[in-house]
C-alpha cells in the first residue's frame, strides 16, 4: 500500500507535467520552454547581450586562426573586450537575478 501511494504521488509531481523524452531534441525544447516561461525579462536582456559577446569573440577568434595574428594587438584588444564584457554581464546577471535577492539585497 505504501509503495502504491508513493508511486501515485510520483506521477503527479510537476516534473511529470512536461512529459519530456530522453532524446537530445526533446531536452533542448523543454529547456527552451522552461527558459522562456520562467526567466524574467531583465535576465533575458542580459543573456542576449552575453550571447552577443560570445558571438563576436568567436568571430574574431576564427578570423585570427584563419588569417593570422597580425596585427596581434588588434586581436588582443577585440577578443579581450568581448571576454570582459561577457564577464561583467555575467556579474550583472547574478546581481539582478531575483533568486539571488538574499545574497544581493
Amino acid at each position: 500500500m505504501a509503495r502504491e501511494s508513493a508511486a501515485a504521488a510520483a506521477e503527479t509531481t510537476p516534473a511529470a507535467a512536461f512529459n519530456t523524452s530522453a532524446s537530445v531534441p526533446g531536452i533542448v525544447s523543454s529547456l527552451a520552454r522552461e527558459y522562456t516561461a520562467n526567466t524574467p525579462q531583465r535576465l533575458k536582456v542580459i543573456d542576449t547581450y552575453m550571447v552577443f559577446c560570445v558571438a563576436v569573440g568567436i568571430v574574431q577568434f576564427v578570423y585570427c586562426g584563419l588569417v593570422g595574428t597580425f596585427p596581434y594587438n588588434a586581436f588582443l584588444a577585440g577578443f579581450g573586450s568581448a571576454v570582459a564584457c561577457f564577464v561583467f554581464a555575467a556579474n550583472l546577471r547574478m546581481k539582478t537575478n531575483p533568486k539571488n535577492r538574499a545574497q544581493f539585497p
Partner: protein
Amino acid sequence: MRCFRSSTRMLLAICTLASSCLAALQPTDIHIKVMERTGDKLFSASPQYPNTFGKVPEITSTTPLSVSFSVKSTTANEAVAVDQAFVNFRHKETGDETAFVAKRAGVGAYRMDLARKHFRTHFAPSPGLYDISLVLGSFADGGVHYALGTVQMSNGKPQQQQQQQRMSDTVVFGARPEIHHRFAEPQRMPSAAVSLVFAVLCVVPLVVLFGVWARLGVNVGGLGAEPVASAAFLGLVGAYMALAVAYWVGVKLFSALTYALVLALPTYAVGQVALSRRAASKPC
C-alpha cells in the same frame, strides 16, 4: 695576403748558411713510422741521408707519427749531441711551418712522437701535404737541413669541406663588402574581401541583439522620468567612447588615461543621480 712569422725560417736560414760553411753533421739510423693505436705498423721508412722516402703516408689523429734518428759527426765519425734538433713540417700549399723538438733518446740519438693533441692543434685545421725535414744545429759542427719526404695530414673531412674551411680561414685585409640597407618586407595581409566579410560578421550579432531587445520590449521610454541626468549620463558615456577613438587615432596612453580620470568623476556622479532617480520612479 696571409702574414706568417716563424722563427723556424730564421733558424733554417742560419742552419743552411752554417751547413754550407761547416757541414760536419750527418743524420743516421733514420726511422719514420706511422702506427695504429694498437701498435700495428702502417708505414715504415728508413731513408739514408740525403735521400728521401718515396711514399706519402697518410697521418691522422689516430695514427701517430714517430721520427727517430741519430746524429754523427763526420769529422770524428761518432755520435754527437747537437744543440738543436727539430722535425719541421711545411705545408705545400700555404707554406706554413710547424717545428717540433726531437727529444734526446741517448747519446746522439733523438726521437719525435707526434702527439694527438699536437695533431689536433696544428694539422687538423690545415690538412694536406706537408714536407717533413730534419733541422739540426751544433755550434761546433754546424747545421744540417735534411728533407726527409712528404706526408699527408688528414683530418677525416672531405676534400671540398677542407678547401672551404681553408678558404674561410684566409684573412683578407681590405675594404669589407658594402652593406646595403634592406627595408623590412611588409606583412602579408589577407584580401580586402576576407576582411570585409569578417567585419560584417562582427556587425551582424549587434543587429541581431538590437532586434531581440526590441522584441523583448527594451525601450528608452524610462529616460523621460529624469531627462537631464539621463542625457548627461549618456553623453558622458559617449565621451568615453570618443576618448577610445581618440586614443586609437593618435592620443598617447597617459594623456588618454588623464582625460579618462577627468571624465570619471562627473560620469559617476551624474550616473548615480540618474539611476537612483530612475529606480525611485519605478513602481515597486
